[in-house]
């Protein structure tokens, strides 16, 4: 690389490719919701299973990261009045996303199987 591209290569090096915990949850919510997945139902689905409030901003940030990684795709819907004239953005899992979820599931199941019994946490 030319010296002038030093900072460009630093930025490229910093990119991650593995799946984070919240990203995995969002991917699973996308799979559960199917074609109707946009910000509101995704966050409600997460809230229902996590038992706590989920920030819509965090959901969108995770969805954007998933799109950047090619694990999810999106399309715009029609704007409606109760949304201030703003369109919904529908998300779906891509083939790569499904593969990533399966790979993560395999890894987690494998790790759980080999785990010694945890003391004092009721597992």
């Amino acid at each position, binding site marked *: 690389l030319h010296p002038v591209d030093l900072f460009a290569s630093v930025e490229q090096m910093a990119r991650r490719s593995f799946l984070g915990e919240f990203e995995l949850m969002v991917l699973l919510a996308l799979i559960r919701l199917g074609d109707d997945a946009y910000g509101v139902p995704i966050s409600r689905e997460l809230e229902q299973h996590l038992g706590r409030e989920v920030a819509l901003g965090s959901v969108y940030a995770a969805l954007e990261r998933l799109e950047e990684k090619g694990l999810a795709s999106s399309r715009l819907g029609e704007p409606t009045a109760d*949304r201030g004239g703003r369109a919904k953005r529908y998300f779906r899992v891509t083939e790569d996303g499904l593969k990533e979820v399966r790979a993560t599931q395999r890894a987690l199941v494998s790790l759980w199987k080999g785990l010694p019994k945890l003391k004092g946490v009721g597992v």
Partner: protein
Amino acid sequence: MSLRQPPALATWLLNRFHIPQSNPPLAGDLLEEFQSGRSGAWYWRQTVKAIATTLARNARQSRALFPRVFAGWAVQTAIACAFRKFFTPDIPAHVLVPIVMIAISNALIAGLAIGEEKLTRLLKLLDPLRTRFVPLAVMLGLIAGSDGELPWSGLGYVAGFWLGALLIFAVLRPPQAIDSLSFDGTRRRPRWLFLEWLVQQDIASELWRHHRPAQIPWQYLISGAFVLMATLWIFRRGLRNLAGSWPRALFNRVARVMLSLGLYCLIALFVRLTSTEFFLLECALLMVLMLMAKTSPPFPGRQVSPVRNALRLP
């Protein structure tokens, strides 16, 4: 059926951070949830988290700015320290040094303006530091002009300013309109050129504040008018479309030189230089720039490297 209105201040904050523009579905989701019965407190919490998330995302996207800002600040500080240690005590710095620094920085600007190949190549190598030359000249001028009284507070000021600028630019990012501006017609890193301009404006305003208006000579008034004209012109709405054509590119560069001209004349107030020297020097430079630009081919603009282009860096 009338719709419920979400908390006005929270909505104002969302708008202030451009969330409805940058992420319309998110703003729509917030409103939809609020209309479906969520409380005002819920809207507030979601607003704060949406803003925090957006700021964090912008910071991540601007990661490459951090080493650049640090490198620029470190070089500035090192040169200024060396300058103070080796030169200030012995020479009438308040007379000589600002003129030399002005000559250097303006030669760099002139090199850019006329597209001088070797200088342009050198500038490419020094690219991360390029936009610091003018602030460097400003800082050295302040140190020199202080006759040894100001330097460390001056360094602290510059360090504080750059760290603040780092935060502002890494987190908030300038509006899109500023991002698409080009001061020198090359569409290269306008954000940094804008930052340079901010530095100039900041210091210039400090100088004006500490000066007694009755003592302002006519040259400074003219240069102040230049600054005002250039500033107004730069912020005209249609400017973003001007960088492509040759006369407009020339106008861009002249405007930038005018900014420098006004700035240095303003600095002269503080460093007690002869105002006429500054004025003549800058006018001469401006004339040379204009003459050279007229006889040179249309500005070629510098090539963006394939790697940077592929990564879509600014």
